[in-house]
């Protein structure tokens, strides 16, 4: 990924040592994955990262894979070696039936795993904060605000700044951060665009947030991953990272369509159905997102989801 070409940087703060470790890790992990080669299947997920969050996650993933080699290797080597060498039919191997403890060995068993966990914990703490879905992406562009509503079995995206909305089609300009505020008009769902960022739950009466971006124009698959009924498997949506011009014309197309998303139109959308084709709405009733949220206000618990940013 041409990280330097991006108009924004993530404030992860990696040193050069870090970066070389990550590079080493990625090359070795890629090598390990080679037998799966030609498997374009991996391109559909985080390993085919097309945005800064997924890219960072991939680096972390490969780094962790590299560290874990040291966890797995001794076990995978020692188990067959010991079992075979000390087999009954090998009359040359030693036999010490009453040997069952040794302090130095005990240290060897407890200490290295502890060190590995401490090392991993450092990375975990750092990257959990760096890749917090609530954390706005640092960028010289202002983020696109999108309000996402999970419905059965479709996603509604409201663009409050543009006053348009879409169903099952999330469009935004590539290279510009997107800040999603999510809720659900039905049961809990999980918003996921594998090639761009991690997932976050959408729950009725509450909001959660997700920040993501795409490096370059492209079309990605988005999905709900939390089972929510018989239309679940069809609940996929298109994510369109567009050039600025294309995005402008997408907005224009939505407006030209002339459809209005008012409470009545929302009520139709909210019924359980599989959406065959995306819909664009040229205008949105003001405060619609807030009213959807209010329909399912859990009262005292409404504060959830407001801790960040």
């Amino acid at each position, binding site marked *: 990924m041409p990280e330097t070409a991006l108009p924004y940087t993530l404030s992860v703060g990696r040193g050069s040592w870090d970066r070389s470790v990550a590079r080493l890790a990625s090359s070795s992990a890629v090598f390990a994955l080679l037998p799966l080669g030609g*498997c374009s*299947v*991996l391109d*559909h*997920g*985080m390993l085919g990262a097309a945005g800064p969050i*997924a890219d960072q996650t991939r680096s*972390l*993933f490969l780094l*962790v894979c590299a560290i*874990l080699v040291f966890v*797995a290797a001794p*076990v995978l080597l020692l*188990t*067959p070696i*010991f*079992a075979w060498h*000390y*087999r*009954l039919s090998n009359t040359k191997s030693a*036999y010490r039936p009453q*040997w*069952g403890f040794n302090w130095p060995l005990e240290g060897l*068993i*407890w200490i290295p*795993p502890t060190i590995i*966990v401490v090392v*991993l*914990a450092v990375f*975990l703490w750092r*990257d*959990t*904060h760096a*890749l*917090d879905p*609530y*954390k706005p992406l640092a960028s010289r562009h202002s983020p696109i605000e999108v309000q996402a509503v999970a419905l059965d079995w479709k996603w509604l995206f409201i663009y409050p700044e543009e006053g348009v909305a879409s169903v099952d089609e999330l469009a935004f300009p590539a290279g510009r951060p997107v800040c999603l505020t999510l809720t659900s008009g039905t*049961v809990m769902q*999980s918003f*996921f665009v*594998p*090639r761009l960022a*991690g*997932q976050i*739950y959408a*729950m009725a009466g509450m909001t959660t947030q997700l920040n993501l971006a795409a490096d370059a124009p492209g079309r990605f*698959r988005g999905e709900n*991953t939390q089972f929510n*009924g*018989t239309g*679940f*498997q*069809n609940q*996929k949506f298109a994510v369109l990272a567009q050039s600025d011009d294309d995005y402008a014309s997408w907005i224009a197309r939505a407006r030209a369509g002339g459809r209005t998303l008012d409470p009545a139109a929302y009520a139709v959308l909210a019924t359980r159905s599989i959406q065959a084709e995306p819909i664009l709405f040229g205008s949105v009733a003001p405060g619609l997102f807030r009213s959807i949220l209010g329909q*399912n206000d*859990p*009262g005292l*618990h409404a504060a*959830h989801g407001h*801790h960040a940013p």
Partner: protein
Amino acid sequence: MSEGGHWLTLFGRLNLRAFPFVRAWEDPTVSELIGAFAGALVVVGAFALVALLTWQRWWGRLFRDWLTSLDHKKIGIMYVVLAGVMLSRALVEAVLMRAQQSLAVDAPGIVAPEHFAQLFSTHGTIMIFFMAMPFLTGLINYVVPLQIGARDVAFPLLNSISLMLTAGGAGLVMISLAVGEFSTGGWSGYPPYTGKAFQPGVGPDYWIWAITLASLGTTMSGINIAATVYKKRCPGLHLTRMPLFCWTALCTAILMIFATPPLTLATALLALDRYLDFHVFTNDLGGNMMNYVNLFWLFGHPEVYILILPAFGVFSEVISAFSSKELYGYKSLAVATMAIGVLSFTVWLHHFFTMGQSADVNAVFGIATMTISIPTGVKIYNWIWTMFRGEVRFTAPMLFALAFIVTFVLGGLTGIMLAIPPIDYVVHNTVFLVAHFHNMLIPGLLYGMIAGYLYWFPKAFGFRLSEVWGKIAFGCWVSGFYLAFMPLYVLGLGGMARRSQALFEPDYRPWLLVAVCGAFLLLAGLVSLFVQLWVSVRDRDVNRVPVGDPWDARSLEWSVSAPPPEYNFATIPQVDRLDPFYWRKERGEAYRRPERYDDIVMPRNSWVGPLVGLTATVCAFGLVWHIGWLSILGFLGIWIPVVARSFVRDIHRTIPASEVEATDRRWLDRAHTVQPVPRERETEPANLGLARPFPPQVPV
């Protein structure tokens, strides 16, 4: 048709369309026909069983020798039989799901979405609550009293009630195949999806009451096992001299006591939501579904260790026995077990890193999760070092143990990945997660249970299982596992959501085809186990091990005949160190005649357990279908045998010393006359259960 109106009618919500046969008649799609076939299998199976019992005149024996028995060994065996039946059903469901997914790439496949959702819900529910739990409870029941030199568990009647409640829950899940439908909310049953607004049918109610019965049974089992380990150990058997399986059983029991009530509570509150319009977990009127998620996983994560720890215990016994060597690091294994038990309560949030908590909270729970991998890793090394300078035999249980070590480590690696929140964000709810927990539970639970079954079967029934079929089963279970689940890791990284009835990404197809082959191999593994049982029962006369120590093992259960007498020990043993039977053999003190025999008092059979199980199931069935009179009748029925029992004085029977002596002498005479067998020939008919002392230490 008002909601409340059902309760007063004769059949509640039950009508003709509840029967899959009627539904298949009206709408004969492949999916409905599969449903009707499964329902028919339950009905025909039940009729065939009744016919067989009547034809062979086994009814009396069934009740007298088994269902009313309070013998911990028989209860243990019944638990394992229940697990075997439920495993068969849930594994067939798994194959059906894998088949569906491999056929349904840009195609409808053979199973409709509604049906598919019931499949993954029953598969998960059965595998956890009605396969894994009965299997491990059965092994613990059978083995622990024998290992600690006790005649029975602390509360034999409670033991029977626990079994029958669990069986009742399993029965409800089976009934749901033939009458009505099952939940589509998965094994975790998250509201609001399982609430009345989204699933008005009986599905979630079946799930709720089946789980409730099972969880009550589990809590009582936990109390029973813990009390047994604490109070029934024979003289000299300090906690630190217990076999490791007893340690894991104790830890599992403690987890059962503390972790199962949150589940009972969660399902009870969900029932209040569904039946009485409470709003505990629905968003209106102040409820919140996040409460359910927390309660469920407060149970759900310790549950993982309830499942895995007993298998760790089995592996400790198996690896030590088949290496003819003391367990390496016994004390650190015990410490690691208890550490895992405590830590298991500190990590539940990692099941929902994606629910929007702050980064601090996620990071803390992520680190806590990784911390568990330290004691777990220690255990792995303890087993490896147990083989060091041993004499390893590759018998079927040992092969399962070796496959476990290697496979479990791979699952542990992906577990560490999932413990890291940012990585979890991108693989949560995908089949990567599915691959991970199968990667933990198939080696970490099922291989352990199978190894335990193969290892202790000769003790329980007096003859060894076929080694050839054991190895065939091993080959199928291990190759099947890798073929079925490694592709899921790849697919999960490719973003494939779990629980998908159909897929729209052609790149997934080859991997799904590999996975379905693996699923069929796993099914072949199960079939091999049944064939093994069949062949072994047929050839039992040449494989008998009456003296009772076929593997030259170390703990007390091997110091008695196979099968053991009802009272386990003619005289209660005295123990002065770890591995007492090994040392007795080493000092030439094994198979000595006791100085005197005493009368032995054992509990009489009781009908309370079967009656409580039956009435509780009837009550639950009435609740599922809103049949008021039936649920009230069932509920009252539970208490009749319980109250009646409190008036029964004559609950024990005495086995006279003379009878004990005669039985014991017969066995000891046998032990003194048969040929001891060397380890090289332990899987041959020459093995009559008397081990030849191992040659002295070979120099390094």
